[in-house]
């Protein structure tokens, strides 16, 4: 068992009720630093609600969230992003009417301008360098001046992940990054996720089992708001209960 210091994120009895519906039921979850964890489960299992509570977009009904030993349950989403918990949306979410360059620079600027004075002045040279580096990394350097909404779908997804990357997160939450991508685009995004994983912890929600099995070392399975199994890809593949609810066998 890992020592406490290696746990980057933990939830205790985390729950969310929407009216009468209990979307997430008392979930205890631990994530170790440097892991690439996948969460799988059928539609409506509560995966997105669960990670939305971690990122701060949704307030939990009860339970606690601990990040790097700090209770962040009541912390605002933007403060969590500042601490290093970064979330990419299930549906591509970028500044469609701004250029690719402007998109990335907004993310880089946030990281550079952590101090109070930073909101009025930022080192434009440094900003430019960093934006350029990110653009290079996501392969969109040639499209820098293009309007983000006019990019091909796969490139929009790369830009979306690029925005997260530019914040240099400690924990990156990717909510179904492969949704709607073509096969060659999936390969590209997978390559990027692998590369990102070298430096940081990743929590990945994904439906594409092939992607999950290839990327994750550990898989958490959710159903009806609860965790029903957790283990290595081999263990999960062999788990009868998982096959029943998830693979529909």
């Amino acid at each position, binding site marked *: 068992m890992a020592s406490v210091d290696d746990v980057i994120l933990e939830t205790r009895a985390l729950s969310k009720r929407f009216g009468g519906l209990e979307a997430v039921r008392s979930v205890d979850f631990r994530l170790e630093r440097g892991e690439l964890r996948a969460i799988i489960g059928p539609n409506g299992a509560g995966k997105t609600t669960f990670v939305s509570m971690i*990122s701060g*977009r949704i307030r939990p009904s009860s339970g606690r969230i601990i990040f790097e030993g700090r209770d962040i349950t009541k912390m*605002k*989403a*933007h*403060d969590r*992003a*500042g601490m290093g918990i*970064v*979330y990419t*949306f299930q549906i591509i*979410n*970028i*500044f*469609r*009417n*701004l*250029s690719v*360059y*402007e998109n990335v*620079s*907004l*993310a880089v*600027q*946030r990281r550079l*301008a952590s101090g109070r004075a*930073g*909101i*009025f*002045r*930022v080192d*434009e040279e440094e900003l*430019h360098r960093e*934006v*350029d580096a990110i653009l290079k990394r996501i392969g969109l350097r040639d499209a*820098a*001046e293009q309007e983000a909404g006019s990019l091909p779908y796969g490139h929009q997804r790369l830009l979306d992940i690029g*925005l997260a990357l530019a*914040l240099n997160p400690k924990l990156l939450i990717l909510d179904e990054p492969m949704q709607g991508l073509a096969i060659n685009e999936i390969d590209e995004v997978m390559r990027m996720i692998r590369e990102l994983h070298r430096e940081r912890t990743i929590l990945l929600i994904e439906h594409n089992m092939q992607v999950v099995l290839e990327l994750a070392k550990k898989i958490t399975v959710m159903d009806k708001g609860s965790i029903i199994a957790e283990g290595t890809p081999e263990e999960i593949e062999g788990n009868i209960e998982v096959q029943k609810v998830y693979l529909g066998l």
Partner: protein
Amino acid sequence: MHAANKGFGKVLAVHIGVIAGFFILQFIVPPFHAAMLTRIMVLATYAIGYNILLGYTGLMSLGHAMFFATGLYAAGLSVIYYGLPPLEALLLAILLSAVMSAAMGAITLRTSGVFFLIVTMIFSQVFFLTTLYFNVITGGEEGLVLTRYLKPISLGLFSVELTDSAVKYNFALIIFAIAFLFSLWLTRSPVGRVLVAIRENEERAEMLGYNIYKYKLLAFTMSGTISGMAGAAYALAFAYIGSALASILYSINPLLWTLLGGAGTTIGPIIGTGLMIYIIDFTSGITTSYLIVVGVTLMLLVLAFPPGIVGAIRRRWLRWLP
């Protein structure tokens, strides 16, 4: 060099050109139009302030008359009752407008969407009623004339009188230029970029780690302060304060001017203000129901011409315009 800095020379030249244009016009146009231009510059300052919130942050206020009037009354009343010289009155008015808009922003920004509109309108309308309620001090609807109380502006070796129309013109020009260049600076500053990000996609901006409420409050305060500065300039330049300038029409006016000229463009509010003031001046000579022009223009803008004049020009020809 990257694109954001490319062509800034051109942008700066256009903006300096607008200011220089106004400066030169005073030597060319007849007195009637010089007086009109004075009015346009003061009210364009108001529109520039309004545009920071509407055009660059994406928040539509229906209550900016409250800030315009805060500046107006702060300057006017301090001149009348405390004998403050014009520039001191102006500074006091700017300060009070900043306080007022920060406080109002803190309350109204707790709402979002249409609720924000409703709430800004409520507070502004009540501010208007308050100026009527204290009509013993404010002069109410009839208003008060400052002329007797206005001291000369001392400029070191010599001093100038605000009652002189050339002084009025250049006073208005300076106020206008300050606001205009500030808005240009803002569009290029890190803060301005975040405000645009909030306008474009608030949710994403928040998930990038920006404190949306704080940025909106900052925008609201900047916007309200410039509006207040315009109000103070109005009181001083036209030596008049009255509650009509706090009425809902004065909350609608900057909205109309900004939309007509093009929200989210630095030059649009000026074009919109100038055009509308001339149109109103023209039509009020014909009919007493000239406000119908305001109504029809708003309706037509929404139905047929959403980007506004400069917005359309930028879309079609000059993509580099800020």
